[in-house]
């Protein structure tokens, strides 16, 4: 059997190795890499990105403490990842669509969601889903990877309707790449060549599962080849690099050259500093020392350094932004805590027209509330 052992070696496709080094613009300390040029962003745009990352970080801290106080429910923190989220958000044009996960608070905010609404939802009020008109944003997806075919279909619809100026950006996690829906959605995207950009926020963990055990492929970006589309790896803690790569992908999605295909899979390499959610305790399954190396490449620090060194930012501007950020989050909390809901919501928006039987179920409930008072409904276990 010596022959085909040779043959194997010659013909096996196992030999090809993708370039695995992520694209970077800034080094770990926030200095511009000699090999790189900064993306063409105005000072205002750069400051906007910076302010959004500041806000995201502050929001994260406040949300975690609100959860601890029982004022909102389970929350998925994003510290360490907000640089990438904000950068992808900035890379979008207004008319583009965003498909976020439960962790993409900052991306949603940048694309037009109101902070107060985000918190209202986290209070368990469906009323939080009331984005201003023209904000092209889906409610966050919790069932992993299910948004991938939706984003593909939305992008396909743009193409079919001749909307050349609209692309779709779909966030997903590293864990999501194992799901069938990731595969089916990306394969469709490749076949129908739709204007969609899939950003895999590879934060190294899917709850307690480290990236290396999620898949045996060396990178996530290389999975793109299985779908005949481009895969790119970027330093997800370098907001300028993420912006540049995502912006290029969005542009290509809308107006590819003859030899380009519209879809891109971006692997944004980052780290989840904190717990998976406020219900999770990462010390059970990972060595917290691991995060130190990542924290040294913190996206906020790096951008801050870069902006200071390029004189876009000074201490005064920084302080102003800080104050604005705190005010904005405080106001959002107030808005959310002022929100009200009602049991009627349970039957609303199930169908355009509420079926009789469902309407009767509400009537029954209301009769009971009338008879026994709302307190009787406080606890299922009595």
């Amino acid at each position, binding site marked *: 059997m010596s022959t085909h052992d040779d043959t194997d070696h010659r013909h096996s496709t196992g030999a090809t190795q993708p370039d695995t080094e992520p694209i970077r613009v800034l080094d770990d300390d926030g200095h511009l890499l000699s090999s790189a040029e900064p993306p063409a962003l105005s000072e205002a745009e750069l400051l906007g990105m910076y302010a959004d990352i500041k806000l995201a970080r502050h929001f994260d801290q406040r949300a975690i403490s609100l959860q601890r106080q029982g004022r909102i429910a389970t929350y998925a923190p994003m510290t360490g990842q907000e640089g990438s989220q904000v950068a992808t958000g900035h890379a979008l044009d207004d008319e583009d669509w965003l498909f976020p996960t439960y962790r993409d608070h900052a991306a949603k905010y940048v694309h037009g969601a109101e902070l107060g609404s985000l918190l209202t939802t986290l209070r368990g009020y*469906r*009323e*939080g*889903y*009331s*984005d201003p008109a023209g904000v092209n944003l*889906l*409610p966050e997806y919790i*069932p992993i990877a*299910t948004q*991938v*075919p*939706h*984003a*593909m*279909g*939305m*992008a*396909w*619809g*743009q193409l*079919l*309707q001749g909307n050349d100026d609209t692309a779709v950006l779909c966030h997903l996690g590293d864990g999501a790449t194992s799901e*069938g*829906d990731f*595969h*089916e*959605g990306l*394969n*469709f995207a490749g*076949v129908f060549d739709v204007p969609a950009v899939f950003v895999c926020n590879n934060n190294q963990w899917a709850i307690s599962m480290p990236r290396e055990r999620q898949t045996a492929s060396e990178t996530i970006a290389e999975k793109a080849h299985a779908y005949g589309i481009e895969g790119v790896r970027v330093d997800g803690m370098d907001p300028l690099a993420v912006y540049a790569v995502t912006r290029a992908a969005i542009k290509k999605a809308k107006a590819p050259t003859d030899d380009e295909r519209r879809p891109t899979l971006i692997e944004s390499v980052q780290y989840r500093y904190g717990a998976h959610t406020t219900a999770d305790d990462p010390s059970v399954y990972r060595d917290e020392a691991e995060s130190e190396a990542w924290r040294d490449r913190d996206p906020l620090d790096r951008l801050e350094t870069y902006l200071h060194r390029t004189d876009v930012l000074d201490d005064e501007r920084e302080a102003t932004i800080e104050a604005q950020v705190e005010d904005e989050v405080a106001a959002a909390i107030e808005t959310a805590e002022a929100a009200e809901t009602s049991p009627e919501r349970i039957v*609303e*928006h*199930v*169908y*355009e027209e509420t*079926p*009789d*039987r*469902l309407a009767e179920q509400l009537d029954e409930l209301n009769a009971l509330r009338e008879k026994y008072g709302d307190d009787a409904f406080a606890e299922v276990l009595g």
Partner: protein
Amino acid sequence: MSSATATEAESATERLTLVEGVREGLHTEMARDDRVMVLGEDVGKNGGVFRATEGLFEEFGEERVVDTPLAESGIVGSSIGLALSGMKPVAEMQFMGFAYPAFDQLVSHAARLRSRSHGQYTCPMVVRAPYGGGIRAPEHHSESKEAFFVHEPGLKVVVPSTPADAKGLLTAAIRDPDPVVFLEPKLIYRAFREAVPRGSHAVPLGEAAVRREGSDVSVFTWGAMTRPALIAAGNLAEEHGVDCEVVDVRTLSPLDVGTVVASFEKTGRAAVVHEAPKTAGVGAEIATTIQEEALCYQEAPIKRIAGFDAPVPLHALEDYYLPQAVRVQDGILETVGF
């Protein structure tokens, strides 16, 4: 043009089979609204494995009649995205038994996009699937698990039993603002023809149809089982003087409780006939609803005449699995004789 054709073209109806009714529904709606598109496995050039989409590819082109990769979750999932984008997708699952890989997309997403987004987004789409047994098809090709979809709020579930309804209900399903699971009884795809209105023809969802009026016992059924039910009713009238009312439920979700209960109040006895396994099938929902609403009228147990609590057997035995006229007849007699 032959004179026969000329006459046909002038008349307001044409004689179609059920599968032709489906095709006509698709055709009429695609011609009327260019957001309507068809997608699925082999629906394009091949015209669908049952020819339900025949000719549509040639007429509406590859952008509106799309052969997709072999991936049901991808088909339903991308249809949800298409619906969000403003299209009106009609997705085909090649057989109902192959819709399960798309189950998550159907129940977690299509059904809930409206409620999840507090009404901001909607999901007007149709998922069609040939369904049921009796055609000597291979394993997994004869499923009739409509109950799975009926139990999921946010979905509508429709099963036509006549060519005119196939066209009319499909038309209404396509125009519906919410997702509709449209199950087509393939046993009667070509079993008979009837006059079907030409052009736009919508039959409202949510309304059962009384196929035969009767006073002794109500038979609730849908899809292919309306045939054995009507045969049984005929035999019972002739041979036993039993006068059956046969109600074709047509829309399984939301259920037309009014028509079902009214029929039962008239007869006081009922049988439900379906192909799906008896346990936790839609028959249970109908029987329970009746006893909730009309117990005082009830004179006998409501009889379920249904598939076995077993997978559909290979084709050699499927006629023993499906409710036959003889089983329906015997079951009704049991109810009447109680």
